């Protein structure tokens, strides 16, 4: 049975391996380049508490050089979805082509066939997801050391969430596919659904599943002082801005303390703000220390939904399909 299941998803496995090889071909040279630039610029020395101006410059230069690439590679967050729906395909294809009538009339029971096939599909998807995650983590390493890994574009490819994403896309395509029995539409629905749920998570739900920290502090506008505020280094700052003492946001445009300097810049008088009850900063953020909590909760949600959909697909196939 193992041989049969493996042989029946060989094409998909090869496609997945090809996709991963392509990504590696893209990531390895650029990653090596970035890592060597990181060392060459001596950026690791700049990670201390009080970086010099030269350091600031070096960091900015580095960021400017690799930001474009980083944003481009953020699209790779679609890859877990591709891998997921890809491995769902061989299962749906059997229902579509009616080859289940062949498989289920050999000497193994339908239950065993379904269990075995799904187990191998899930295992293959997991391996691909882990390889993908390791590649991305290696590539991101210099960026993570500078900026942390809480920002969406990096967070999505780090830790364990890509595994949850992959399983979710797999489960969604399977659940749709066993009912619809059409591989191509099921794969498309699975991928589009995956993308929609991801957008929903990235833009709305993630900042709500674990309540973010809110902080209000007296802003010290004097140059050089690093402020009395919370450590927002490497944190995921959801919102940040001037506020009054209670943390109510102040509208800068309506404030009398703002003086326009041309069309794009403004000067804010701190003393003035203080007199008007302002002079405070307010931030809503997830501190860097919550990385694994957020990852755990999010992975749990995606993997849980995936498990439910895979079990549904197994049940439906066992009960309904002939």
């Amino acid at each position, binding site marked *: *049975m193992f*041989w*049969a299941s493996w*042989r*029946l998803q060989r*094409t998909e496995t090869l496609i997945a391996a090809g996709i991963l090889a392509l990504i590696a071909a893209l990531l390895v040279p650029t990653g090596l380049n970035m890592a060597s630039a990181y060392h060459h610029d001596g950026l690791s020395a700049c990670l201390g508490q009080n970086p010099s101006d030269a350091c600031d410059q070096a960091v900015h230069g580095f960021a400017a050089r690799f930001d474009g690439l980083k944003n481009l590679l953020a699209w790779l967050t679609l890859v877990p979805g591709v891998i997921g729906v890809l491995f769902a395909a061989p299962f749906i294809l059997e229902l579509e*082509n*009616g*080859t289940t*009538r*062949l*498989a*289920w*009339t*050999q*000497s*193994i*029971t*339908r239950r065993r066939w379904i269990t075995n096939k799904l187990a191998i599909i899930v295992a293959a998807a997991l391996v691909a997801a882990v390889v993908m995650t390791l590649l991305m983590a290696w590539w991101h390493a210099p960026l993570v050391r500078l900026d942390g890994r809480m920002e969406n574009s990096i967070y999505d490819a780090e830790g364990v969430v890509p595994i949850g994403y992959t399983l979710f896309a797999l489960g969604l395509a399977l659940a749709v596919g066993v009912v619809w029995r059409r591989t191509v539409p099921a794969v498309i629905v699975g991928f589009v659904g995956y993308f929609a749920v991801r957008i929903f998570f990235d833009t709305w739900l993630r900042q709500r599943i674990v309540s973010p920290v809110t902080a209000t502090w007296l802003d010290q506008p004097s140059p050089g002082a690093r402020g009395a505020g919370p450590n927002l280094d490497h944190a995921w700052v959801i919102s940040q801005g001037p506020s009054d003492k209670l943390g109510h946001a102040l509208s800068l445009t309506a404030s009398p303390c703002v003086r326009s300097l041309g069309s794009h810049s403004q000067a804010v008088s701190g003393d003035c703000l203080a007199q008007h009850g302002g002079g405070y900063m307010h931030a809503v953020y997830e501190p860097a220390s919550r990385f694994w909590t957020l990852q755990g909760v999010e992975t749990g949600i995606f993997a849980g939904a995936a498990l439910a959909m895979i079990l549904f697909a197994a049940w439906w196939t066992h009960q309904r399909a*002939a």
Partner: protein
Amino acid sequence: MTEHAAVEAVGLGKRYGSKWALRDCSLEIPSGSVTALVGPNGAGKTTLLQLAVGLSRPSAGSVSVLGHSPLTDARSLLPRVGFVAQEHPLYRGFTVSDTLKLGRKLNPSWDEGVALARIEHLGLPLGQKVGQLSGGQQAQIALTLALAKRPEVLLLDEPVASLDPLARREFLQSVMEAVAETGMTVILSSHIVADLERVCDHLVILSQARTQLVGPIDEIVASHRLLTGPRTDPASVERVHDVIRESHTERQTTLLVRANGHVYDSNWQLHEVDLEEIVLAYLGYGGPNGTGRASSREAVA
């Protein structure tokens, strides 16, 4: 062989939505027989075979194969039953040799010798992709998978429907050779009667989701007669015999009857009928001026 009938159905029915694909089917197919399951498309032949092999679940009644339920005893029953589904599905991307390997891996009772001998006899290259073979060759591969399992019961769903006459003959020849060697029970469905008469010794006629006739072919042929006589009301004949089909011209009445004993009425001329005509009569094709009665009949079993 065994004391159980090869296939036994009691009040078996399958409903899809509100439509019955098979209804009130009760029949017993003896071990060692070669049974033709005949009926037009949509009569319930596929449904009956799929119920027998456990691919679908009865909505009413029950079916047993070799005394076992195909659903609850699947694990012990499946190795003893060979099945070739309609259109003989195969993995088209597999080579012939992959396909045999699949059979070997999925069937503990697999007989590699039988499989290889058949493939060699058919002259099929082991490295060839199954999807590139002709329909007849694919059907033979599907049959090989089923036969190498060494089944006691072989179920074939429309095995020759999509084949050309030569491939059809070769396929049925293969089935007959296997039967001669092993004495297995075979049930094969078809809507082409002519092919089956040479091969089968039992007949099940299905029409409109119901069984119309079940029995050994020689008994069926022996008991059916064509009566011709001057135009008359067939009521007197109907009192004794089952009139399957009546047709009238201006001066003559023709009846196809299932005779209960001899027909003694000298008004009628008796003729033998061949199997095909009997089947057609039960399926409701009444000939040029005929009125088929079979469609309104209850099962005659």
